C-alpha cells in the first residue's frame, strides 16, 4: 500500500470519528421519547392492574361470603333431611327414640367438625380464591426492565467515553488492516518467481509488523 495513502486514510478516519463524536443526538432523543412513551404505557398498565386487582378482591370477597352462606344453607337443608329421615326411622322403629340424645350427639359432632373447618380457614378465606388468580405484575416488571434499558440508551455519553470508544474503533481498524497486510505479505512470499531482494524485504516487513508465522 502506498504509505502516503495509508498515512492520509487513518487520520481521515479519526477526523470522521471526531466529527461524528457526540452526534448520536437524534438517537438519544428518539430513545428518550420512546422512554416517555413507555412511561405512558406503564401508567396505563398500573391503572389496569389496579382495576383488575380490585375486581379480583371484590370477587374473592363475594365468593368467601357466598361460600359461608352455602355452608350455612347446606347445614340447614341437612337438618331438615335428617329430621325427615329420623321421623321415618322412629315410625318404622329402625331407630330407638330412647337413644335420641346419643344420635343428637353424633349429629352435633358432625356439625361441629364442619363448623370447625370453617373456623380454622376463616383467617383469610379470600386467599383461597386469590391464590387461583394469575399474578399480573409480570407484565409491569417487563416494562420496567425495558425502561431501564431505554434510559441507558437515552443517556448521553461523556466526551471521555466517546473518545475512548473512538480509540477502540481505530485500534480495531488497525488490527484488521494489519491482519490483511500480513495475509498479503504471506501470499506474495509464496510466489516462486519472487526476486531474492524483494523476498528478503517482505520477510523483514513481516517481521517488523509482527505477522504470525506462516506454514510454508
Amino acid at each position: 500500500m502506498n504509505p502516503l495513502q495509508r498515512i492520509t486514510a487513518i487520520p481521515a478516519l479519526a477526523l470522521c470519528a471526531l466529527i461524528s463524536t457526540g452526534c448520536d443526538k437524534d438517537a438519544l432523543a428518539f430513545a428518550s421519547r420512546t422512554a416517555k412513551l413507555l412511561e405512558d404505557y406503564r401508567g396505563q398498565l398500573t391503572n389496569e392492574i389496579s382495576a383488575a386487582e380490585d375486581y379480583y378482591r371484590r370477587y374473592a370477597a363475594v365468593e368467601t361470603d357466598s361460600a359461608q352462606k352455602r355452608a350455612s344453607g347446606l347445614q340447614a337443608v341437612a337438618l331438615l333431611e335428617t329430621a325427615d329421615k329420623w321421623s321415618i326411622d322412629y315410625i318404622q322403629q329402625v331407630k330407638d327414640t330412647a337413644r335420641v340424645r346419643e344420635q343428637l350427639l353424633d349429629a352435633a359432632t358432625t356439625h361441629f367438625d364442619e363448623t370447625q373447618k370453617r373456623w380454622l380457614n376463616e383467617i383469610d378465606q379470600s386467599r383461597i380464591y386469590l391464590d387461583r388468580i394469575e399474578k399480573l405484575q409480570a407484565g409491569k416488571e417487563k416494562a420496567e426492565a425495558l425502561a431501564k434499558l431505554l434510559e441507558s440508551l437515552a443517556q448521553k455519553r461523556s466526551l471521555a467515553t466517546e473518545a475512548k470508544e473512538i480509540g477502540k474503533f481505530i485500534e480495531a481498524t488497525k488490527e484488521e488492516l494489519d491482519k490483511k497486510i500480513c495475509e498479503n505479505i504471506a501470499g506474495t512470499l509464496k510466489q516462486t518467481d519472487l526476486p531474492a531482494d524483494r523476498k528478503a524485504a517482505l520477510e523483514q516487513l513481516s517481521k517488523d509488523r509482527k505477522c504470525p508465522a506462516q506454514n510454508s
Partner: protein
Amino acid sequence: MTQPSNYTLLLLAAALTSPAQNILYNQDRDKLAKDTLEAARQIASAPLSAAEIRNLATIEQNQIQSAIEWYRITMRSNIQSFRTWRDAQNSINFIAAEIDEREAGLQVAPRVAATAAGLTSRRENLKTQINNLVKAGELAKANAAKTASATTPSSELKIIGERVGQFEELLAFARKVAAGIPANPADSNQAAAGIREDIATTLTSVEKAVKDIQKGIQEVGELATTIETIVSSWEKIRVDPASLAPSPDKIALELLQREAEFIKNLTALRVRRHFEVAETIKLIRRFQAEFQRNRFSTADLDSEITADLSSLAGSASFRGALEQRLRTLLLAAHISARQSGDQTMNDIRESIEFRRYEVSRQSVYNSAYEVALSAAAERLAAYYASGIKPTQVAQLVYQLGTAFTLPYIAVTK
C-alpha cells in the same frame, strides 16, 4: 470515486451531511439496543390482557361452580318444603313469580341492561362503520403501492462494476492477440519470444490490477450500502415514536371488532337464557296442568303428601290417581332442580362477558403502545447495528493499497 482521497471524502461527507448521527459502529451501543429490542418484544409477546382473560376464565369457572352448589342446596331445600300439596304448589308458584319478575327486567344487572332492539341497532351501526374503515384501509394500501422506489448510489456503483467486467473481456481478447503475434523476420527468435513474454507479463499485471479495482469498487459499493443503511436508519429515528403506533383508523377498527364480538357473545348468552327460561316456564305450565288434574279439594291441599300417598298406595284401584300425583311431584322436583337459577348463572356469564370486553378493549390500547414500543426498539437496534465496522474500513483501506500501489509496482518493476 476510485481515488483514496475520494473514499475518505465519502466518509467525511457522510459524517458532515448527517451531523446528528454517528456513522461509526459501536459494539456496546449495538448490544444495548439489541437487548432493548428483546425486552420490547417480551412485552408484546406476553400481554397483560392475556393473563387477565385467563384469570376471568378461572373466576367464571369458580362462580359457576358456586352457583351450581347453590342450586343443589336450593333444590334439596325445596324438596324438603313439600310437606302438603299446597306447599308444593306454593313452591312452584314462587319460582314462576320469580321468573316473571326477572323477565320484566326488574333484576337485570344495570350495566348489561341493553335491550335486544338496542343491540340490533348497535350491531347494524357497527357493520356500517367497519365497512367504511375497511374501504378506507384498502384505499390507503393502494396509494402506498403506487410509491416508486428511488435510484440509489449503490446501483450506480454496480454499473461501474459491470463496465470493469467488460474491460476484463477486452483484456482476455488482448491476451489472445498477443499470443498470436507473428515473429518479425528482422528480429531474432529469442527477441520475438522476449517481446511476447513482455506483453504477456504486462497483460497479467494489468489483469491483476483490474481485478483489484473490481474488488475495490465492490468494497466501495458495500460501504455505500452501509452508508445508505446508516442514513435510512437515522431517518427512521427522527420521527416521534408515538407515530409508530397503529393508525387511529386501525385502532378504531380493532375497537369496533371487539365491540362486535362482545355484542355477539352477549346476544348468544341472552338467546341461551331465553331458551332455558322458556323450558322452565313450559315445565311450570305442565306442572300446573297436572296439578289441576289431581282435582284436589281444599282439605286435600292441606293434607300431608306422605299421608295422601299412603292412602292411595293401599289399593290397586287408585293406581291411576297415585301415578297422577307422582307425576305432579316429579315435575315439581324437576322444576326445583332447574328453578330460577338460570338467571343467576346468566348474570355471572354476562358480568364476566362485560369484564372480558373491558379487558379486550383495553388490550387494543395497550397493543397500540406495544406495537409503537416494539417498532421504536427495532429502529434503535437497526440504527446502532448500521454503523461502519472496523473490518469494513480496514478492507477498504487495504483495497485502496492493493488496487493502486501493488499493481503499479508490479507493472513498473
